[in-house]
């Protein structure tokens, strides 16, 4: 670097730039939080959805699946599983979920195995509610198609 560019200047860019950009991030975060209620449709976040998130976390589902594209890439994306498996009705999605969770692990040789988590019917229903709620978050139309 040219000698005219001194260490002091570099230091000022670091401190000044760093602080400025961090404050900008905080400001943008405030703005994002103000607009968020509409996008995350929190009015529909019921007790059951909240409990469902607990079921999701307590069984470390994120260790295999992705949710809105984040998590592990070993098993299918689940933020849109309601769209994929629900046949357009919450009723049939709940029925699908009960049957699916009870059938694990599928006895197909060599296929990646989902463990049997021994969830109660209430837990499966809560999990379904959580996944249905998640599928309705405004996520800028991700993923590109229903396969996730």
């Amino acid at each position, binding site marked *: *670097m040219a000698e005219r*560019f*001194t*260490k002091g200047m*570099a230091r000022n*860019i*670091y401190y000044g*730039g*760093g602080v400025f*950009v*961090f404050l*900008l*991030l905080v400001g*943008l*975060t405030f703005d*994002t939080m103000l607009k*968020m209620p509409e*996008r995350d449709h*929190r009015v529909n*976040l019921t007790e059951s*959805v*909240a409990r469902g*998130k607990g079921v999701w*976390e*307590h*069984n*470390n*589902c*994120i*260790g295999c699946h992705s*949710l*809105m*594209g*984040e*998590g*592990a*890439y*070993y*098993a*299918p994306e689940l933020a849109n599983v309601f769209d994929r498996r629900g046949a357009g009705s919450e009723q049939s999605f709940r029925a699908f979920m009960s049957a699916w969770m009870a059938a694990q*692990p599928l006895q197909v040789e*060599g*296929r*990646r*195995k989902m*463990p049997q*988590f021994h969830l109660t019917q209430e837990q499966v229903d809560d999990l379904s509610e959580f996944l249905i*709620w*998640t599928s309705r*978050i*405004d*996520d*800028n139309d*991700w*993923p*590109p*198609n*229903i*396969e*996730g």
Partner: protein
Amino acid sequence: MKFESQKVAQPYFIFALVLFVGQILFGLIMGLQYVDGDFLTSWLPFNVARMVHTNLLLVWLLFGFMGASYYLVPEEADTELYSPWLAKVTFWVFAVAGVATILGYLLVPYARLAELTYNHLLPTMGREFLEQPTITKIGIVLVCLSYVFNIGMTILKGRKTVINMVLITGLIGLAVFFLFSFYNPSNLVLDKYFWWWVVHLWVEGVWELILGAILAFVVIKVTGVDREVVEKWLYMIIALALISGLIGMGHHYFWIGPGTYWLWLGSIFSALEPVPFFMMVMFAFKMVAERRYEHQNKVAIKWALGTAVMGFLGAGVWGFIHTLAPVNYYTHGSQITAAHGHLAFFGAYAMIVMTIISYAMPILRGRPHGNPPSAQRLETFAFWAMCTSMVGITLALTVAGAWQVALQRLPEASEALGFMATQDKIAPVFWVREVLGLIFFVGLMAYLGSFFVGSKELASDSELQLKDAAAA
């Protein structure tokens, strides 16, 4: 070694490498589970293996950062460590808590672990990379506090060099941003938004300060280049890292709920994130080219240059290929992400820890001029084996990801292949990845082996020197 208290770094380095071996073993198991769904799954489900793989990485890197700090801060501050005793206690607390947590993952079902550790009182578990029981998280906070306190007090009583100041800023940031791991609202969008304040602000924020400080320290030591020059580079690198990286966090906000302006902000700012990594490459090569003396520890110089290059490739280039929103729309959460994750963590963070170990361990073991040639030769082989196989793994996963996108994401819904069918199709690439993983493991074993060769050489060397001295 200038100060006796720098010795406390040694157990940190050794334990970091032990955990590194564990991380790779679990990685190899997961690699097989990718292609054979029945491999060990009744004893070790994939989600458990992955949690162990990623958590071991996190913990061994933290051990590495701690060892690096305890080694370099006293030397930079030109004073003994504030409290070597506290550093030793912290080591044991962290080691025991870490091992206990990993055993918890392996020995009881995760849901049971959550119950046993009273997760319902303050639910923080079950989120990617933050799977640790709440009690472990509190332990991590205490360990970090003790560590930052010890390093901070040492700097306060000694020289406040730029390297020390940048390092302590990074460490304080590390501790502060980890606190967001305790925020876990039932609203998934808010949970995800602030989850990134731990994960992104660590690896694409404050960890880069730690990386820069360690690299600058080693570069000064092995090249003898004037401190003023190195410090100017360090300031510019971390300035650009923060300026690009903080708003660059927007590239994680594309598809998880936040508004549309993040598509622009995230794309533009994160597209600049390779710049500081490229500067790191220029910096490292320029300093080595302008070196004032020939340091005998040649392999440490190799690690320093390698960190810059591989960090640039993994964090910079592989980050850039999928960071623009129109691209990321198709690649988000695919094997492309996995490719980037592997090369970025290895290139930037695993390698900086091996750089400081390669420089400092010989000195801690009473070999101020580096390891004997035979040990350095083996370590050089390990360097190339690990670097090339990791680049290979990254290329394999990139092919897997591109193929996955082509089969599953690009076609219209009616023609797109489902997730599981896609995974079956791309399985051959996962086999390639597994073979490369085995080569990586061979490299890692050679690396560990290099610590145990050449002691005889060293002995005969010093006899020679004694004879020389006698003859003179």
